[in-house]
């Protein structure tokens, strides 16, 4: 089995309900608490397994808002597991879920450094690493009705933008969604083979388009090199471009 999530960027409205439900379930679950720092103060902060960001793709008037919920991708090639010196981080043989055994973790942060997707957060109070468990304490719980044996984020999502299932089964809902809708992995070039997939926004009837200007004049080799160096300089540290 290869369990994971499919997230539909077409329907996600960025409401953060999945993140809140996740926090609620997991803070009292087996990996809890998801510690909060200064929860009623000026700068409330804390551990979350799932974070939602909003982006704008393309330029006006062709722009579109994309909401991206992100949690652990339960990568096939999970460097967070291989870098862990204590064996606290592990990937389960039977279903591919990546977990942290908190009784073994020494809080070195190396796994969080190795994760490209920002899926791991140190609990500063307990000194151990925490991350999405794919609700491992729900999905196998035989006391729950069958249709509730799913990650709580999937159950909560009001627009039904999240799906849970087995990617090894070609007939599962997640597999067919990926096949039919062109589901893709984020930042695939790092080679972590993330299991979670994202469905791109659907094609809509074309809205009036602005002409895009064709690329400018040809540049000389020297000019290109100098531009590269200028870009390199401009990308140093912090500063205005």
């Amino acid at each position, binding site marked *: 089995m290869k369990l994971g999530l499919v997230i539909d960027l077409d329907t996600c409205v960025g409401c953060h309900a999945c993140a809140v439900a996740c926090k609620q379930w997991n803070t009292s679950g087996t990996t809890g608490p998801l510690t909060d720092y200064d929860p009623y103060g000026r700068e409330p902060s804390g551990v979350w397994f799932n974070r939602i960001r909003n982006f704008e793709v393309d330029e006006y008037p062709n722009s579109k808002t994309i909401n991206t919920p992100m949690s652990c991708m339960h990568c096939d090639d999970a460097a967070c597991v291989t870098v862990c010196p*204590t064996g606290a981080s592990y990937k389960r043989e039977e279903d591919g879920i990546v977990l942290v055994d908190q009784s073994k973790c020494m809080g070195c942060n190396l796994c969080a450094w190795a994760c490209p997707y920002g899926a791991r957060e140190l609990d500063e109070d307990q*000194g151990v690493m925490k991350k999405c468990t794919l609700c491992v304490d729900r999905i196998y719980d035989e006391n729950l009705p069958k249709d509730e044996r799913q990650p709580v984020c999937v159950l909560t999502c009001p627009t039904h933008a999240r799906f849970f299932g087995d990617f090894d089964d070609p007939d599962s809902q997640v597999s067919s969604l990926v096949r039919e809708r062109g589901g893709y992995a984020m930042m695939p070039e790092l080679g972590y083979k993330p299991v979670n997939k994202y469905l791109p926004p659907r094609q809509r009837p074309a809205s009036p388009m602005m002409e895009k200007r064709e690329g400018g004049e040809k540049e000389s080799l020297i000019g290109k090199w100098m531009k590269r160096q200028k870009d390199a300089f401009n990308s140093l540290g912090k500063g205005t471009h």
Partner: protein
Amino acid sequence: MHPALSVIFFTVTAGAGYGVLFLLGLARLTRLTPEASPDQVTAMALVGLLLVTVGLLSSTLHLANPRNAWRSFTRFKTSWLSREAVFAVLFYPVCLIWLLFEWFTGNTVATNVSGVLTSMLAIVVLVCTAMIYASLKTIRQWHTALTPFNFVLLGLLLGALILNLMLAQQGLTSDALEVVSLVLLLLAGMVKIIYFYWIGQPAGPTINTALGFTRATVRLLDVGHSSDTFHTKEFGYQVERIRLIWLRAISVGLAFVIPLLIVTGLFGPVNLPTMLLAVGSAYAGVLVERWLFFAEARHVVNLYHGAQRT
């Protein structure tokens, strides 16, 4: 990346200690310090061992849960951090056996064999430390073969200068060691300058590949959190550009240029006070270098916080 002082101090100080022990382990065989007596070699090696120990102790300061540190010996097969821990501990008995031979038997075959073993282990630990960083695909400024070269060369460089200082303190001189220091200064300086150039070149993931929208511009509208998170604190650190350029110049000046001027004798004869200056300057320079190594590293998570590229 957030530059954690305990890790900076650890990598520089332990690196210098391993540098001293590497050179001393080979000193008899290569006739690096021909006149030093067994007592003197042992004493100098103990200084190296002290540096290593102080460094290693400080490295545990950045652990959030040091009670489980002993478990870090258990994942030798996959984790460079585990390998570093194992070799760093293995280093002690080997080094002590060598020192016993050196102290009691002087320049014998047993001393040389155990000395070479000690030297090899010192390099292995340095490489393991560097590979912790170099193996991370998420930070392109670290994920390069230059990283282990850099760590090893700078460790050896500090080791060579400290050894020079200790020889001068005992009224000994070694032409061979001065040549070694010169070569290390030039080589390490060159690798560092290549590194600065190399990390400036555009490469690595961008906000487009991070989100999978590669045919249009992408910009962050809202990052989704209202105050600092673990990720902004750990990975969000950035230095002002002007400060960065100054710090690069300062680190190269202190670590390579000033020691080079001293070792080549341009500041007058090479003696105890000038060597003291060289060691102090190089140590400070490498500390700045290591601080920059962290501060200049840009983790790909920043792309999800709005950075356009790494």
